[in-house]
C-alpha cells in the first residue's frame, strides 16, 4: 500500500491486488469453516442408496435419517432433553456461584485474594482425566451414576475458573461509585449490588453464561464415564455411541442427522450473540 492509500477512508478503496487477496482469503476462510457443516447437512438428507455417493446435493433428498434418529433404538430425543437439563442447570448454578466469587474478588479487599485467584487458575489447568476415576468412585458410593447431578456438578467446577475470570474482569470496570451512592441513599449492601451493579453487569453476565452453556453442552469425558444408559446420556455421548453400536456398518446418515440436531441450537446462539461471544473469549484470555 502506498502512503496515499493508507490515509484513504475505509470503504472507498480502489480494487488493488491487496483487495483481491483479502477478499479471496475471506472466501477461503468461510469455506474452510463451513464446509464440514455443509457436508454434515447434505449427508443427513441422503437416503441409504445415496449416502456413499459424493454428490454435493442429493438427487432425492429425504428426512428418513431424522425419523431414524428420533425413533427406533436411538431415541435421540432423550439425549437432547438430557443435554438441555444438564447444560441449563450447570449455567444457572455456575453463574450464581461465579457472580458471588467475581464480586468478592473484584470488589472486596481481604488477605489471600491472590492465593484464591491462583488456586482457581490452577484448577482450570487440571486435566479432566486426573479426576475422573475418583469421581466415578465417589458418585458410585453416592448412587449418582446415571443421574444428572453427576454431570452437572463436574460441569460447574470446570466452568467456574473461566466464568470467575471473565466476571472479575467485567466487575473491575464497573462504576462502583454508583453502588456507594445507592448505599448512602439507604440501600443495604445486597440491595445496592442487586439494583445498581447487577443490571449494569448484565452484558458481562450474559456473555459468561453463554460460554458456560457452550462448555456444558459440549462436555464429553466425564459424561462418558458417569452416564451409562440412554436415560441420562447427553448428546455428545449418545452421538458417539451411534458410532460404536454397529462396528461394520456405521449408521452415518443418522449420525449426521443427529449432528445437525445438536449443532442447530449452537448455530442460532452464535448468530445471535457473535459479538458478545468474541468479547467474552478475549476477556477470558487477557485476564
Amino acid at each position, binding site marked *: 500500500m502506498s502512503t496515499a492509500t493508507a490515509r484513504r477512508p475505509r470503504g472507498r478503496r480502489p480494487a488493488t491486488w491487496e483487495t483481491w487477496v483479502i477478499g479471496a482469503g475471506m472466501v477461503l476462510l468461510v469455506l474452510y469453516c463451513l464446509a464440514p457443516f455443509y457436508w454434515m447437512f447434505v449427508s443427513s438428507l441422503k437416503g441409504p442408496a445415496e449416502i456413499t455417493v459424493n454428490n454435493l446435493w442429493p438427487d432425492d433428498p429425504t428426512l428418513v435419517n431424522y425419523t431414524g434418529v428420533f425413533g427406533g433404538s436411538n431415541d435421540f430425543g432423550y439425549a437432547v432433553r438430557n443435554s438441555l437439563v444438564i447444560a441449563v442447570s450447570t449455567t444457572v448454578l455456575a453463574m450464581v456461584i461465579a457472580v458471588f466469587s467475581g464480586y468478592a474478588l473484584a470488589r*472486596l479487599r481481604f488477605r489471600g485474594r491472590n492465593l484464591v485467584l491462583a488456586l*482457581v487458575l490452577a484448577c482450570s489447568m487440571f486435566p479432566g482425566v486426573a479426576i*475422573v476415576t475418583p469421581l466415578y468412585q465417589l458418585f458410585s458410593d453416592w448412587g449418582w451414576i446415571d443421574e444428572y447431578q453427576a454431570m452437572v456438578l463436574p460441569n460447574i467446577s470446570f466452568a467456574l475458573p473461566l466464568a470467575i475470570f471473565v466476571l472479575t474482569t467485567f466487575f*473491575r470496570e464497573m462504576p462502583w461509585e454508583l453502588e456507594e451512592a445507592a448505599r448512602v441513599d439507604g440501600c443495604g449492601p445486597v440491595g445496592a449490588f442487586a439494583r445498581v451493579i447487577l443490571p449494569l453487569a448484565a452484558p458481562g453476565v450474559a456473555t459468561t453464561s453463554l460460554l458456560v452453556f457452550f462448555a456444558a453442552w459440549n462436555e464429553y469425558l466425564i459424561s462418558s*464415564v458417569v452416564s451409562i444408559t440412554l436415560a441420562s446420556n447427553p448428546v455428545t455421548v449418545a*452421538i458417539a455411541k*451411534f458410532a460404536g453400536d454397529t462396528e461394520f456398518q456405521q449408521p452415518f446418515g443418522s449420525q449426521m442427522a443427529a449432528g445437525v440436531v445438536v449443532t442447530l441450537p449452537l448455530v442460532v446462539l*452464535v448468530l445471535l450473540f457473535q459479538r458478545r461471544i468474541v468479547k467474552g473469549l478475549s476477556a477470558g484470555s487477557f485476564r
Partner: protein
Amino acid sequence: MTAPDTASAPPPGARTPRPRRRAGGERATERRLAALLLAPMLAALGLVVAYPVASAVYRSFFDDPIGGEPAFIGLRNYADALFGYGSEGFWAALGNTAVFTVVTVVVETLLGLVMALVMHRAFRGRGIVRASVLLPWALPTAVSAVIWGWMLQPDGIVNALIGAEVVWGGSEWPAKWSIIFAEVWKTAPFVALLILAGLQTIPPHLYEAAAIDGASAWRRFTSITLPLAKPAIVVAVLFRTLDALRMYDLPQILTGGANNTETLSMLVVRAATSELKQGYGGALSTITFLFVFLCAFLLIRTIGANVFAGIREEGTR
C-alpha cells in the same frame, strides 16, 4: 501462575474514591463477606477437583488386588508405568501426546495468524466471517469427531476431493494425521479470534508513520504487527498447548486409540475404567497432571516471561 500480574494489578478498590483509613470493624465485615461469597466456589472446586486429585494421588501408592484390601506399595505403580510392564504403553502415549501437541499448536498458530490478518484487513462481510469462525469453536468436539470420521471414510468426501484412496483409519500415520486435521480445523479459528483481538489493539497511526518512513509491507509486519501482537499469540499458544496435552474426546471417538494414536488422557481413562486399576490409574493420572503443569511452567518461563512482565508494567502505570 499469573499470580505475579494479578498481584501487581491495582487493588480493586483503588479506582473508586474510598476513605483510605477505615475502622477495623469494617475490615472484618468485609473479610467475613468475602469468605461467605467465596465459600460455594471453594466447596465446588474442593469436591470436584481437590478431593479427587488428592484421592488419586493417595490411591497411587497402593496396589490393585483382585479382592481384599489394597496394600501400600510405595512408588511401585510409578515405576511400573515408567519402566515396568506398563512402560511401553506409557511412553507411546506420551510420544503421541507430544506429537499431537507440537504439530497441532504450531499449525494452528501459523494458520490462526494468517486468518487473523485476513479478518483484520477485511472491509466487508466482517459479520459473516466472524460467525463462520465461531462455528467450529462452538461445535462439540464429539460431533466434530463424528463428522471427520465420516468425511475420512475410504470412499468419503476427503478421498474423493484429493483423488486418493487413503485408508485413514487403517495405519499409524494416516490415523494420526486424521486426528491432527480434525483438531486443527476446529481450533485454528479460535486461535485466529484471540490473535485478532491482539491485532485490534495496535494503533493504526503506527502503520501510517512507518509507511511514511518508507517501510515495506514485510518490514511493517515484522517490526510492528508481530511484536505488538505477541502477547495475544503467546496467550493463544499457552491455551492451546494446555488443551492439546489433555486431548481426549477427539482421538477417543475418531480412532479409539487404534494404530498407536492413544494419548495420555486415553491411557489414564482406560487403566482406571476398563481395567479397573485404581492405584495404577492414579499413578498415571498423577504423572499426567505433573507433566501438564511442568509444560505450563516451562512455557511461561520461556515464551511467557517478558509478556507477563510487560502486562505487569502496564498494570502499575
